[in-house]
């Protein structure tokens, strides 16, 4: 991807998203800590002592096969995971993978580490280290991870993906129950986040792969109004998922996370040019 020369990139960001990311990160971290406290006979009043699996919607996806065939859930997956899966799917049908961009704490942590990387390598270099063709091919790897995660779960009837899950490692590292492989994957993810924005989301996240498919038919889509677009490429540079927004009228890329960083509310300097909308823009 070649970018036209632009004088500066507007540093405005989507603050409601930042607030929600901090909120959900804090909430999940507190629930994870509280679960340990409850297990030890304590606990924070008024806060759920649920396990991490109980508040992860991907657990619902992993148990789907067992639920359909046997009417029960696999070990560790709770009814709440199943309900969350349905809620997140509804949100995704409306707005695409907004869960990834606004809620998922692992995505948030990668973004926070990425801010450091952006400072080191500056906006134009950061997130553009991998050759375009290779990057494009690697992005389909997460579908392989999705198929594999479902296969090992269906085959064993257990949450074996936990052994490799960086999300589980991040919020359970103090429990002594995290596999070395999960720690390694978390470490690699955080290290790569210094060079690439959201590497886990782009190349390996099985849930992101599934939710990403809703970009093909979501109700509210990111639209670019070609008539007012200055083609300065600012949206392309700012997009954490490296989508060439300036080349599209409607962003249907399977990697879009609806972060809105490309829109006229954030980086796009022209009002009402890149927007989130349902239906055609007049």
């Amino acid at each position, binding site marked *: 991807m070649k970018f036209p020369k632009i004088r500066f990139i507007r540093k405005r960001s989507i603050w409601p998203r930042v607030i929600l990311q901090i909120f959900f990160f804090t909430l999940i971290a507190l629930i994870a800590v509280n679960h340990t406290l409850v297990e030890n006979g304590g606990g924070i009043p008024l806060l759920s002592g649920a396990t991490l699996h109980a508040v992860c919607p991907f657990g619902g996806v992993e148990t789907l096969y067992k639920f359909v065939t046997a009417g*029960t859930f696999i070990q560790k997956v709770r009814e709440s995971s199943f309900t969350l899966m349905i809620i997140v799917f509804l949100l995704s049908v409306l707005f695409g993978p907004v869960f990834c961009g606004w809620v998922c704490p692992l995505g948030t942590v990668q973004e926070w580490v990425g801010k450091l990387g952006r400072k080191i390598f500056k906006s134009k270099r950061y997130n553009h280290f991998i050759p375009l063709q290779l990057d494009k091919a690697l992005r389909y790897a997460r579908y392989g991870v999705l198929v594999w995660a479902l296969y090992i779960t269906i085959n064993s009837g257990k949450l074996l993906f936990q052994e490799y899950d960086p999300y589980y490692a991040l919020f359970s590292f103090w429990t002594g129950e995290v596999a070395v492989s999960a720690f390694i994957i978390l470490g690699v993810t955080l290290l790569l986040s210094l060079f690439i924005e959201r590497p886990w989301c782009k190349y390996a996240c099985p849930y992101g792969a599934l939710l990403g498919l809703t970009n093909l038919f979501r109700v509210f889509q990111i639209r670019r109004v070609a008539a007012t677009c200055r083609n300065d490429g600012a949206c392309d540079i700012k997009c954490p998922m490296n989508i060439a927004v300036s080349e599209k009228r409607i962003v249907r890329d399977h990697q879009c996370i609806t972060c809105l960083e490309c829109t006229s509310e954030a980086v796009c300097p022209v009002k009402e040019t890149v927007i989130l909308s349902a239906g055609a823009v007049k």
Partner: protein
Amino acid sequence: MKMNSKILGIIVLVVIFGGIAAATALGYWDTESSGGGYGGGSRPESGAESVRGRTTFQDLLDLGLEQEVIERIIGGDLPDPSGLVRVYCEENALDFEVIKEALQLELDNLASGE
């Protein structure tokens, strides 16, 4: 119809927490057990005690679980009854969550008279 980030943020919160509230009201929200199916079938409403981190083997025996059942679940002889189940799992490289669920299922069945 256009949508800005503030409205989207509010919708995300409303859908997630509204969905959880609705699921709770309808009996589709259980974070404790994975034993059964969907929609209030996860745990019998039997008043059975919960297995927690501070539960000892003696507690399980006092609740009516037979020694053989406990030994089958933990895959070994019953240890010192005053010991915590959680600590036993940690010492024997067992997944406490899995053991806890199996014990809980037995307790639930016991309480519901199965």
